[in-house]
């Protein structure tokens, strides 16, 4: 590789947990850094430059003025990558989308609410075109490494488009529904290797809905397993808040 692509990291509303995952690659990160030049990454360095080829953007868009900054990043970057659930699907910030504006403003900012601007949380793709998604809350550092390597080889990483169930079967997990638990794996995009189920939990849906997710079927399955609409709604709102196909509160 003659010229190293210049890479920058940015964040909007989020916990920076995805950038932390990148930093968590530790020595692997050094090997990957040999192929790129990081010009901006608040998590690990202080300098900043606006000359970059690839932008990794974390966080969701929650204020009108975020849009301007994101559009500038889009303008500068050849490739824009959404990093983590907040950026790819609006993330957990979308919980506020189910509450009316005056309520969440006063809850968060109290009496000084009028000095702050805020609006419904949304993913980057609601504002600018995104070239590549790295899903998850937080992202899986190995998937990040794979995606970066593929970019360096001239390929846009495409995460699986099927539900997590397939990866549970490959991992040899016993289905959470057979154990009487509520699990969003049946409608959530795979690519995490079913890590939460493998570790003993259930799928929280952090990678967003699989493109062909059958929500009607999911509703029936949850109901057949004895879960109420409210059970399902609570779980779905955690990460599926910004998908217009999410269940309507009934």
């Amino acid at each position: 590789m003659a010229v190293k692509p210049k890479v920058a990291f940015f964040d909007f509303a989020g916990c920076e947990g995805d950038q932390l995952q990148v930093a968590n690659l530790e020595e692997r990160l050094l090997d990957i850094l040999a192929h790129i030049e990081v010009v901006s990454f608040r998590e690990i360095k202080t300098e900043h430059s606006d000359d970059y080829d690839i932008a990794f953007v974390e966080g969701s868009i929650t204020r009108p003025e975020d849009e301007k900054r994101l559009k500038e990043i889009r303008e500068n970057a050849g490739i824009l990558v959404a990093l983590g659930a907040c950026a790819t699907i609006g993330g957990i910030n979308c919980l506020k989308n189910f509450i009316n504006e005056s309520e969440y403003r006063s809850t968060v900012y109290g009496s000084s609410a009028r000095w702050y601007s805020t609006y419904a949380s949304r993913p980057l793709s609601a504002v600018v075109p995104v070239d590549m998604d790295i899903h998850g809350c937080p992202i899986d550092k190995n998937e990040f490494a794979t995606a970066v390597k593929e970019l360096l080889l001239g390929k846009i990483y495409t995460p699986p488009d099927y539900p997590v169930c397939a990866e549970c079967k490959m991992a040899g997990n016993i289905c959470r529904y057979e154990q009487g638990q509520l699990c969003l794996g049946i409608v959530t995009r795979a690519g995490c290797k079913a890590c939460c189920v493998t570790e003993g939990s259930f799928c929280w849906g952090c990678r967003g809905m699989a493109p062909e997710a059958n929500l009607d079927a999911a509703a029936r399955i949850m109901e057949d397993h004895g879960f109420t609409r409210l059970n399902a709604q609570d779980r779905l709102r955690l990460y599926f808040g910004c998908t217009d196909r999410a269940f309507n509160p009934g």
Partner: protein
Amino acid sequence: MKPDFSPYVPRPATLVAKNTLSEYVTLFEFAQDSGKTLAHRPGQFIQVSIYGVGEAPFSVSSPPQSDHHHFELAVRRTGSVTNALHNLQTGSKVGIRGPYGSYFPMQKFVGQDLLFAAGGLGYIPIRSVLYYMLRHREEYGDIILLVGTRHPRERIFTDQLEEISRRSDVHVLETVDVPDESWQGNVGVITTLFPKIRINPENTNVAMIGPPVMYRFVIDECAKLGIPQERIYVSLERRMKCGLGKCGHCQINGINCCTDGPVFCYTKIANLPEAF
């Protein structure tokens, strides 16, 4: 101990030339590093690897070369492997496996007429058959080549087609679906060329390759001309991942496109609803 053999191990080949055919399609000429000929037959495909990016199947576009280790692929930029191929500089290496699959029965065609129907990129594998026949021109009867393209700017191999159309022993007819100002030729889908040709149904074979929607219509036209189904050959496109009849991606009902195909006598697939 005998070293392990695996059919999944590609052989290295080197890109020797690259020629732009249209906005999205490029002709790649490769040479096998082994110096051996590819030994493919017209209609067969190979698997091309760009390590780290992946592997994808391509029909060989050049005719078999018994004396030459070069071969050609014409590739449309459409996915990650084809993108990576387009970004290669001459001298770069790729991995290849194959050739795989069935082929056009060149021996059966000897002494007979051939009608080619090529829709869009379907001309790429047809070219392998056509050039093979041109090299052994005296062994075959009349050759008619019908080429249909959506738009004039998507036409490929235009220089070569012009060269062939100047020959007296090949009848070339072209059409485009949507003309532009520069287009002087026929306008309409490929079936609009059929009224312009004369064939001897007793002695004509058909080789057709094109987008899935094309086949039924062209087959209907052939039926109208009285060409029996057992002399119609088609090649079908599927996503062959292994090329060995295992991975399942290229299944067409109960058959595998990679090992039972990609070239089929029409009678073999006429009753397969998933064929077209």
